[in-house]
Every structure is written in structure tokens, then in C-alpha cells.
């Protein structure tokens, strides 16, 4: 199949029909979705209508936009008007949002075709998509293994060829880690670059929407479409979206690259080997590569797992059985709230709400939440010091390749999946995962490229170079 970039270009120039392209993807979905379970809902009829409209526009001489006819899969925590949005939670089952998220609006007006809503760990809390109320998504490379999470459905959809691109959300690594495990590109933009209007909130000071794609160029195209200021999000950065596509062929001559030494600890050997090969390729390409210490990242995981649940406990207070979603009966309103929340939320969500409620409660606030916020400041200071001497930073995306279902039932073991991705969320910097060869069992390995806030151009520039140097895929 074509890349999204080529498909859109072909549709705009009448060389390819959006309807036929969509049907090609729907055939792949029909063949493999039962095994993979990437989707919570497939919006077949509306997608066909949209594709027909795109073709009619082209036929009548109008330009549908830069994503003309490109099928897109959306994580099911992005609001889509009149299309069920569940967050893979029973508590929202059947809810149809009365409005589109800004990113959905922008995709539609760029000519994209929404194919469906993808599975996730409930309310985006997890690293394996095992915590979905609707059953797990399986990794298209090996159906006995997880796709990562929480945006596992979107990552698997792109990896399985169900759609050329998808959107996810990344609070602690929920785009980058599944991208790494599924062998696709995944981008967490600078906090505030992409509007969060219509993204169902998990941890508001971390959440960012970003693209999944088969290659860096397609990821750039999608990010250029969804990024830029939105007056409906008060945390949206008031500046226009930068051009990313023009940076992709610039190479890395003279670029200063730092490998974060703390993020090499506890990483599987196969993953470390690929990271060093990527670093060697950058060096070969003219970059100046060395090792750099960002000491505070060692405390990132702990800080994150106090702050994110604290914000979640507040954000998820709205699910009370009154205004939307399900309700369990109770003799008074408090009993109804408590019964609804027990029956509607899964165990991982309850655990995080409880953890966050504790971290914010009287007598414990300073010792837990307050300290974690200070670690956030330290992390910013340490990254600033590293970026004084480096243009980009490099690390593994995930400590391991895709693992088997049920393998990480202990909470801390699961949370450690996010060790390398969390630091960027703590400080709001952009980071992306680029596939770079394979590791144990022939499974994909990802390399993470990090950059300072709003320096997506150099991040994409380096990512495109790494992609161009990646070893031939071992098909065994």
C-alpha cells in the first residue's frame, strides 16, 4: 500500500480514488481484525460516504486538502460527534459526544477519512492495552504478545495495515511505547502544540495528542495538520505550526547528539544493541555523538506515578452517573455515585484514582504530591543542562521488545515500561519513537529521539536520518 503522503497526493491529482483506497484498507481489516482487535468501533458506512465526497470534490476541481482520502484510525479517547467514544471503559459505554475534538475537525477538513475508534487501556492508564474493558489488542507481529499501551489499538492498526496513519495520546509514553513495540513511528509533540480540546482528560499537565505512521514523513504530514494554536484549549501555545516536512532530508552533519546514560540502565541487551547502532549511524552521518547524564530522570517514574494519578483522581471525578454514561442504582446520590464508579471503572483505574486521592489528601500532600512536583523542576533543570551542549537526546523507547500477555501483572513491573518515555512528559518536551531493526524473537525495536520544547524540526530531521539508516528487517 501507499504511504499516506503518496495516497493523498494521488487522490488530489485524480490518480487514485479515495473510495478504492478505503476499500483496500477495509479488506485488510476484514482479514485480520478478528485476530488483532485494534478497534472498538469501525465506522464503515460514514467512512465510505466521506471517501465518496472526497472523490466528488476532486472530480469537480476542488482540493480536499493535504490528507485527501487518507484513512485515519482514532484512539477511542478522542471525541467524535455522534460516534461512540468509550475510553475502553464501561462507565462511558454508549456515550456519543455532542462535538468533535479539534484534532478530529482538523483531520476532516484536511480531507482525511475516519475509519474507526481504536482500543486502549481504560482511560489511557496502562502500557499493554490489557486494561481495556473490551478485551486486549494483540500485537500484529506476534499475536501472543501485547502491542504496548495505552494507545495499543492505534499502533496495532497502523502496523497491521488497517490504516496508514492513526492518532493516539501520550501521557507517560502511551504513543511512543506502543509505536516501538509495533514497529511504527510514534510522536509525542511539545505540550501545547496540539490542542487537547475533545481529548478526554487523564492527566492534564502531561496529556498530548500525536500521530502514528509507517514512516517519519507521514508522521510529519499528520502533525502539521493537527498542530497549531486552538483558542478552545487554554494551554494551546499561541503560535502557528512549524513546517516539518522540509527538514526531513537535511541530514545530521554537525548535529550534537547525547545518549542519556541513566536511560541505558535496566534495558534489555537486544534493545541496547540497536540504540548503539543508531548512534553509530548518526555519527557516520556527521553528527557529534556522546554520552550525557540527566540525573533526575532516575526519579521520573516515581514522580510521574504520583502526579499523574493525582491529576486523574480530579479529572475522573466527573464520572458520577449523573450526566453521561452508565449509572448503578443507590438509595441516595452518594451511594449511586459510589456504586456507579465501582461498577463502571476497572481495577487499574480504581487503583490510580485511589493513589491520586491519597497523594492529594490532607497530611500526605507535601510528602508525596509536593515532592513529586519538585522532582519535575529538577528534571527540567537537568534537561536544560543537557540541551546546553546537545541538540537532541537519544535513548531506547521501551526497555524491551513486546512482551507476552499476563507477563507483567505486578504494578511496578508494568510501570517500568515507561521509564524512558516519562521524562519528556514531566517537562513537556517533544519526543518520538523511530523503528530501528529488530531484537529478540525478530520483534521491532524503537529508538527515542528527544528535543527541547518546540524544536520538533530538529527532532524530525534526526528521526528521518535514523529511519534512512535502519538495518534491513530480519523476517525470521
Amino acid at each position, binding site marked *: 500500500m501507499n504511504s499516506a503522503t503518496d495516497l493523498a497526493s494521488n487522490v488530489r491529482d485524480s490518480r487514485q480514488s479515495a473510495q478504492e483506497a478505503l476499500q483496500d484498507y477495509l479488506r485488510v481489516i476484514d482479514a485480520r481484525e478478528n485476530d488483532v482487535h485494534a478497534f472498538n468501533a469501525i465506522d464503515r458506512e460514514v467512512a465510505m460516504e466521506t471517501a465518496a465526497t472526497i472523490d466528488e470534490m476532486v472530480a469537480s476541481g476542488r482540493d480536499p486538502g493535504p490528507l485527501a482520502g487518507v484513512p485515519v484510525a482514532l484512539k477511542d479517547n478522542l471525541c467524535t460527534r455522534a460516534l461512540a467514544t468509550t475510553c475502553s471503559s464501561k462507565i462511558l459505554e454508549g*456515550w*456519543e459526544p*455532542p*462535538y468533535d475534538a479539534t484534532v478530529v475537525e482538523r483531520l476532516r477538513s484536511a480531507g482525511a477519512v475516519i475509519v474507526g475508534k481504536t482500543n486502549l487501556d481504560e482511560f489511557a492508564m496502562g502500557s499493554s492495552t490489557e486494561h481495556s474493558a473490551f478485551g486486549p489488542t494483540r500485537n500484529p507481529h506476534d499475536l501472543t504478545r501485547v502491542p504496548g499501551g495505552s494507545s495499543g489499538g492505534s499502533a496495532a492498526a497502523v502496523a497491521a495495515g488497517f490504516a496508514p496513519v492513526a492518532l493516539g495520546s501520550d501521557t507517560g509514553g502511551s504513543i511512543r511505547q506502543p509505536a516501538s513495540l509495533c514497529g511504527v513511528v510514534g510522536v509525542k509533540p511539545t*505540550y*501545547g502544540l496540539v490542542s487537547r480540546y475533545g481529548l478526554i482528560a487523564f492527566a492534564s*499537565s*502531561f496529556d498530548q495528542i500525536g500521530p502514528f505512521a509507517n514512516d517519519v514523513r507521514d508522521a510529519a504530514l499528520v502533525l502539521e495538520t493537527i498542530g497549531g494554536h486552538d*483558542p478552545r484549549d*487554554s*494551554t494551546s*501555545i499561541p503560535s502557528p505550526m512549524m513546517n516539518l516536512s522540509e527538514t526531513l532530508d537535511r541530514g545530521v552533519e554537525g548535529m550534537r547528539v547525547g545518549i542519556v546514560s541513566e536511560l541505558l540502565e535496566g534495558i534489555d541487551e537486544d534493545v541496547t544493541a540497536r540504540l548503539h547502532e543508531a548512534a553509530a549511524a548518526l555519527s557516520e552521518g556527521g553528527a557529534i555523538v556522546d554520552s550525557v547524564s540527566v540525573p533526575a530522570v532516575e*526519579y521520573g517514574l*516515581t514522580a510521574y*506515578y504520583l502526579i499523574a494519578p493525582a491529576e486523574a483522581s480530579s479529572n475522573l471525578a466527573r464520572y*458520577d*452517573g*449523573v*450526566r*453521561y454514561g*452508565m*449509572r448503578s*442504582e*443507590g*438509595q*441516595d*446520590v*452518594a*451511594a*449511586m*455515585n*459510589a456504586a456507579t*464508579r*465501582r461498577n463502571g471503572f476497572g*481495577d487499574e483505574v*480504581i*487503583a490510580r*484514582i*485511589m*493513589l491520586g*486521592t*491519597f497523594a492529594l489528601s490532607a497530611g500526605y500532600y507535601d*510528602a*508525596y504530591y509536593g*515532592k*513529586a*512536583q*519538585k*522532582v*519535575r*523542576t*529538577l528534571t*527540567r533543570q537537568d534537561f536544560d543542562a543537557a540541551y546546553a551542549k546537545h541538540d537532541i537526546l537519544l535513548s531506547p523507547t521501551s526497555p524491551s521488545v513486546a512482551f507476552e500477555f499476563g507477563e507483567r501483572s*505486578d*504494578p*511496578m513491573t508494568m*510501570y517500568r515500561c515507561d521509564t524512558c518515555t516519562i521524562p519528556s512528559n514531566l517537562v*513537556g*518536551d517533544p519526543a518520538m519513537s523511530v523503528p530501528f531493526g529488530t531484537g529478540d524473537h525478530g520483534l521491532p525495536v524503537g529508538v527515542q529521539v528527544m528535543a527541547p*520544547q518546540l524544536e520538533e524540526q530538529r527532532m524530525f530531521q534526526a528521526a528521518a536520518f535514523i529511519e534512512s539508516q535502519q538495518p534491513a528487517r530480519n523476517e525470521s
Partner: protein
Amino acid sequence: MEESLSQDLVAHIASLARIDLDEAELLHFTEHLGKILGHAQQLEALDLDAVEPMSHPYPLNNVLRDDVPGPTIEPSDVMNQAPDVSENQFRVPPVLGESS
């Protein structure tokens, strides 16, 4: 931070969070949260007295927009998503114990 997490405290947290948990569930979450908070002891090693807390990654300012009329969501599109509605209002069980 050295205080261990008791089941009574977890029950108190569950009531603050408005989640109805039975004895077995309280036991499960006491153990589960204990593991995570045990890990959080790691922060004890840091001297953070002189460090300012950070609540947000980007300098935030109040954002005021011009008061321009625009399209709004139809009340019916919102109300028809609710579990129980009466005369365009959300209906809930008694709040203060009197029967409705």
C-alpha cells in the same frame, strides 16, 4: 512517608474517591497501593528543600478571548446522553435522605 498504608486508611480514601469497595477489594487495593507507595520512598533520598514545585510544563497565563457569538451545542444533544432526565434536567436519587 514511613507510615505504612493501613486498610482503614484505604477505606477512607475509597470514601473520599466515592468508590464503593467491599472487604476483599479493600484488601487487594491496600496491597496494590502499598507496593507503589513503597517505591515512592525513593524520593526520601533527595534534598528538595530549596527546589520550587512545578505544576505545569509551560508558562501558563490567563487566556481571554473576544466575546464573539458562535455555534453552541444543542441542549438536547447533551441531555439525551444522561442516564435519567426529567423536563430537560438531570434526575438523581435523593441527596438529603428525604424520599422523592
